[in-house]
C-alpha cells in the first residue's frame, strides 16, 4: 500500500507546493477532513481555514481562503483562491480579509439578497475564527 500521495497546492497565480504527503487536513465546506493515501475520490469546496500537510520531510501549514480540493486516485490537488503559509500571514493581512468578508456581508444585507446573507455571514465568521485559531 502506498503510504504517501502526490499533494499539489496551487493558487491562480502560481503553484505553491508539490510534494509527497502522508496526510493532509482540509478545511472542507462541511467540516474538516483528513485525506490520506487511498482516500475515496472526493471533490469538496473549502471554507477559510487551515490546511495542514504532513509529509515525511516535515509538516507545513497554509491558510487558505476558499477554493476547492480534489482527491483523486493519484493524489490530492488543492486549488485555493488564496493560500499563504501560516508563518507569513500577518494580522494586517487577516484584517484586510476580514474587512472584505464584512463588506460582502454588508452588501448582501443591504441588497436584501437573503440567500447570500447567510453565506456571507458564515464566511465572515470563518475568517474571524481563523484569526483566533492561529493566535494572531
Amino acid at each position, binding site marked *: 500500500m502506498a503510504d504517501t500521495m502526490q499533494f*499539489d497546492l*496551487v*493558487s*491562480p*497565480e*502560481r*503553484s505553491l507546493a508539490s510534494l509527497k504527503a502522508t496526510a493532509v487536513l482540509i478545511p*472542507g*465546506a*462541511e467540516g474538516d477532513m483528513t485525506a490520506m493515501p487511498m482516500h*475515496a*475520490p*472526493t*471533490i*469538496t*469546496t473549502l471554507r477559510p481555514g487551515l490546511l495542514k500537510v504532513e509529509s515525511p520531510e516535515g509538516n507545513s501549514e497554509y491558510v487558505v481562503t476558499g*477554493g*476547492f480540493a*480534489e482527491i*483523486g*486516485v*493519484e493524489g490530492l*490537488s488543492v*486549488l485555493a*483562491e488564496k493560500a499563504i503559509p501560516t508563518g507569513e500571514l500577518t494580522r494586517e493581512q487577516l484584517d484586510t480579509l476580514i474587512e472584505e468578508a464584512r463588506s460582502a456581508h454588508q452588501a448582501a444585507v443591504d441588497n436584501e439578497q437573503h440567500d447570500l446573507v447567510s453565506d456571507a455571514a458564515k464566511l465572515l465568521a470563518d475568517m474571524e475564527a481563523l484569526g483566533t485559531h492561529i493566535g494572531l
Partner: protein
Amino acid sequence: MPSLKDLKNRIQSVKNTRKITKAMQMVAAAKLRRAQEAAEEARPYAKRFNAVMAGLAGSVGGSDTAPKLISGTGSDQVHLLIVLTAERGLCGGFNSNISKLARQKANALKAEGKTVKMLTVGKKGRDALKRDFEDLFVGHVDLAGIKSVGYANAQDIAKDVLSRFDAGEFDVATIFYSGFVNVVTQVPTELQIIPASYEASDDADGLAAEYDYEPSEEAILADLLPRGVATQIFSALLENGASEQGARMSAMDNATRNAGEMIDKLTIEYNRSRQAVITSELIEIISGAEAL
C-alpha cells in the same frame, strides 16, 4: 537640397530615436520574460480547474436545474463583448488587431439583429472602438496603475461581469484578447465565457473515477462557475500581457533596424553633399587663380 547642418541635425535626431527604441526593446524583452513566467505559473491551476469543471459540467450541465452560467439564459439576444487590450501603444499591431476582431464580431452581431454591449479593459481598445461603438459601451476597466496583473484584477472584472449577468443585462459574454504563440506571433482570439463551455481535455483520465461530492454536485458547480469566469479572464489577461510585450519587442526591433538604415542613408547623403561643397570651393579657387 538640405544644407549640411540640416543633415547633421537630422542624423542626430534619428540616432536619438534609435536609442529610445533600442531601450524600449530591451525593456520589453525583460518584461516579456516575466509575463511569460507568470503565464506559465498560472497554467497548472487553470488546467486542474478546467478538468474538474469538465467533469462536473458533464454530469450536471445537461439537467434542467443547471446554473444559468453554464446552460445560458435560453436566449442569445444580448451579447456582451469584453475587449482586453493594453494601456500603452507602440506595440505594433497588437491593440488594433484585437480591436479589429471585436469590431468585426460586433458588426456581424448587429447585422443579425442582436443587441451588442461592450466592456473595455485597457485604454487603447476603448480609444480604438470609441468612434464606432461609443453608444454601446457599458463600462471600462482601467489597468493603468497596475504593474503586473494579479488574480485580484481578474476577480474584479469577473465580479463586474457577473453582477451584470445576474441583473439580466446580457445573455452571452465573449472576451477578446491576444493569444500568445511566440514572440513574433500573437493571434487575436475570441472566447465565449458565458455560458461557459468546458470541454474534457485529453488528459482528464483522472476524472473517470467516480467522485464523492461535498456538498452536492450542484452546490459545488454553483460555487465554482463564478470562479471559472475569473480564472478564464485571468488567463486571458496573462496571455495578453505576454503578447503585448512580445509585440512591442518585435515592433521596437523593427524600429531600431529602420532607424539604423535611415542613419546610413543620411550619412551617405551628408558625405556626398560635403564632397560637393569641397569640389565647388576648389573650382572657385582654381578659376579665380586662372583669371589673374
